[in-house]
């Protein structure tokens, strides 16, 4: 390189330095109202709340400033939103390694028992008892039971769901089909066969196939339960290769492969929602919250959606039970502030406030009886509200299936190990749905995985 080019490049140096300085100056000059430190300043406390990504959570983030902070001037709320899987991992890491990053965390019923046993979250009976307006007995009984352990409530439900069957009335009418009042899975399969129309890109039914213990296993487990199958018996023997379980899984996988949407192995709630909304599936079995989207204005099939209870076989009901609930980290340094926020977020007052801003159809469902007794809510969501309530109330979280099970839980096994072996089994099911292996291969592998996991963890004595 010649010396003249050296001189040329010399020019670049001050420019680079100036650019850097400008960037840093700009960065620090930009004021960001959201980056206040989490320590108290002048009596004000900041609490950090971890939530999962969900339209209902977005709503409460929007409403917290006006609905909570305005009336609680010494409390500021900061939300941290991640997708479901990341949030769960991040929160557990924080509670287990005592990071102290969060005050309030959003968890599901599957973590309640083990977290309570580890002392990671606080019991809430006392504090909700002291809040006169909270009305803890207004909470739906099965939801409350799911969030309790040994008589103590550990989390307050933000929204709750079960599962049911949705169907496209227009397609049914065109094909001359009728949905029974209390369908069985056999009847659903027959309807799917008749409604399936590949040339018109209409699938008989849309079902979840995506890998994920909260994805395809949610639907599949309810089918297993109602057909007499199980994950484990009371002595922690894995039952994934029992005749009943195998029959149930065969039924589900074959139904999806024959009359389900193409590429089902990649589909969960969102994908089936799209497919169903676009009229490309005659039926959709999924979470009750799906109803508030497909039957709302803006949906191409609004007004044309019919609802039926979750299909059964040997049991009287078969809907799943899930709730996203707010729990208080034991290591939180702002317990009182956190409790105030949690109580507000899950209260009748919040629901009414949300309704006043966004209409009754969009309020968080599945938590309180009073919501379902409200005339406005009935008017806005009547088509599916009562069925949702019925499904949630008819869930027996201790024995959703035919046989007794070792721990409570409907569509999951309520032990911490399930996140791992459930995920692995779920991947096997996806492989079966994608045609990469047979159902019996998938179940044999799953049986080994599940049994080894509980053996290693010391459940099986």
């Amino acid at each position, binding site marked *: 390189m010649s010396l003249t080019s050296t001189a040329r490049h010399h020019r670049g140096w001050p420019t680079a330095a100036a650019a850097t300085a400008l960037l840093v100056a700009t960065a620090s000059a930009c004021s960001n109202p959201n980056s206040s430190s989490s320590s108290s300043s002048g009596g004000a406390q900041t609490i950090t709340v971890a939530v999962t990504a969900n339209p209902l959570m977005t709503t409460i983030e929007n409403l917290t400033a006006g609905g909570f902070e305005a009336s609680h001037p010494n409390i500021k709320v900061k939300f941290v939103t991640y997708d479901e899987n990341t949030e769960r991992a991040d929160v557990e890491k924080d509670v287990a390694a005592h990071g102290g990053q969060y005050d309030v965390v959003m968890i599901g019923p599957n973590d309640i028992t083990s977290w309570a046993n580890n002392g990671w979250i606080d019991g809430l009976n006392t504090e909700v008892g002291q809040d006169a307006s909270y009305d803890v007995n207004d909470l739906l009984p099965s939801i409350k039971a799911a969030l309790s352990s040994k008589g103590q409530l550990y989390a307050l439900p933000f929204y709750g769901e079960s599962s049911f069957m949705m169907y496209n009335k227009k397609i049914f009418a065109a094909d001359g089909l009728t949905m029974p009042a209390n369908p069985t899975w056999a009847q659903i399969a027959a309807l799917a066969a008749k409604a399936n129309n590949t040339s018109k890109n209409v699938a008989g039914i849309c079902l979840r196939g995506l890998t994920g213990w909260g994805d395809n296993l949610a639907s599949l487990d309810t089918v297993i339960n109602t057909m007499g199958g199980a994950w484990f018996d009371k002595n922690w023997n894995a039952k994934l290769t029992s005749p009943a379980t195998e029959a149930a899984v065969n039924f589900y996988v074959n139904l999806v492969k024959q009359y389900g949407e*193409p*590429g089902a192995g*990649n589909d969960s709630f969102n994908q089936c929602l799209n497919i169903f909304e676009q009229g490309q599936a005659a039926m959709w079995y999924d979470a009750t919250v799906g109803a508030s989207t497909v039957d709302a204005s803006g949906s191409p099939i609004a007004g044309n959606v019919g609802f039926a209870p979750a299909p059964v076989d040997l049991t009287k009901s078969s809907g799943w039970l899930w709730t996203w609930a707010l729990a208080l980290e034991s290591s939180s340094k702002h317990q009182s502030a956190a409790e105030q926020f949690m109580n507000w977020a899950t209260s009748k007052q919040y629901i009414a406030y949300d309704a006043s801003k966004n209409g009754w159809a969009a309020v968080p469902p599945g938590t309180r009886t009073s919501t379902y007794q409200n005339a406005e809510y009935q008017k806005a969501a009547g088509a599916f509200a009562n069925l949702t309530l019925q499904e949630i109330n008819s869930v027996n979280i201790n024995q959703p299936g035919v046989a007794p099970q070792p721990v409570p839980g409907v569509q999951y096994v309520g032990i911490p190990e399930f996140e791992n072996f459930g*995920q692995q089994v779920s*991947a*096997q099911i996806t*492989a079966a749905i994608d045609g990469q292996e047979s159902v019996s291969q998938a179940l044999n592998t799953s049986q080994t995985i599940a049994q080894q996991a509980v053996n290693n963890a010391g459940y099986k004595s």
Partner: protein
Amino acid sequence: MTVLTTAPRKLALAPPRSRRRGAAWLKRLPLLPAMVFTIVVTQIPFVLTLWYSFQRYNLNYPNRPRQFPTVANYRAVFSDPVFRTAALNTLEFTAVPVIASVLLGLGIAILLNRRVFGRGLLRTLIISPFLVMSAAAALIWKYSILDTTFGVLNYVLRPFGVHDANWIGVHSQLTIITFLTWQWTPFMVLIILAGLQSQNEEILEAARVDGAGPWRIFRALTLPHLRMYLELGILLGSIYIVQAFDSIYLITQGGPATDTTNLPYYIYQVAFQAYDIGRASAMSVVVVVGTILIATLALRTISSIFSDDTLSRG
């Protein structure tokens, strides 16, 4: 008085022993800040990982006895068939994308080295896959491009008779390999393009004047010149691609079954779904040792980066 040696960097005079030792330390001094910084920030976590690997530590059961020291984790790792599968998958998901992106990068670099209309724009467009955030790109590929029903790819291929192909479920390994190749080809293009542009034009022209055809010139002149660039691309690319995580976590979830589970994803599952920190640490240590062995082998035998030739300068 010693004579000037052929290696121009050696000092002309040989100073007395004490001064030479002082001079040696002076030589090392500029290196110290970087070394100390790296050792502190990387080795402390590594030592902690090593320590955990000899304990039974599960985040879900913080009060269980740690049984330190124990080799139970390592025994579990080596008898784990999924670990073996993950290791093989990792090899596959590193070797194939690296080779493919180097070959593609070579072809594209050659094309971009010619005088082509809008070459500046083309060069900026070709590096865009490398600049986009990996997780965002993975989500777009999963939901917008490869989706069976809603994806653009199937839409574009429909007139060619492809009907609702399930890329992610049925061709899962191809999906991951394609995604990684797409991401890293631009990086290779840049490196190889630099090599092509730094060729000595006069030699090339002389060869052409002598009647050598373009293929002969490429084989005899260009490729040897490019060797260093290709090796650098392969080295850097491999270091990053072997750790590929976002695409597997977001697009295939390691499946179907364990078809696309690689080592980073498997370690993630053990650490953040099973919360078995002891076993995850042991797996990480095994991965480090294995990578060091492979890298040592490659760098000291095949590659010329570490040879003394690199030190000679005219």
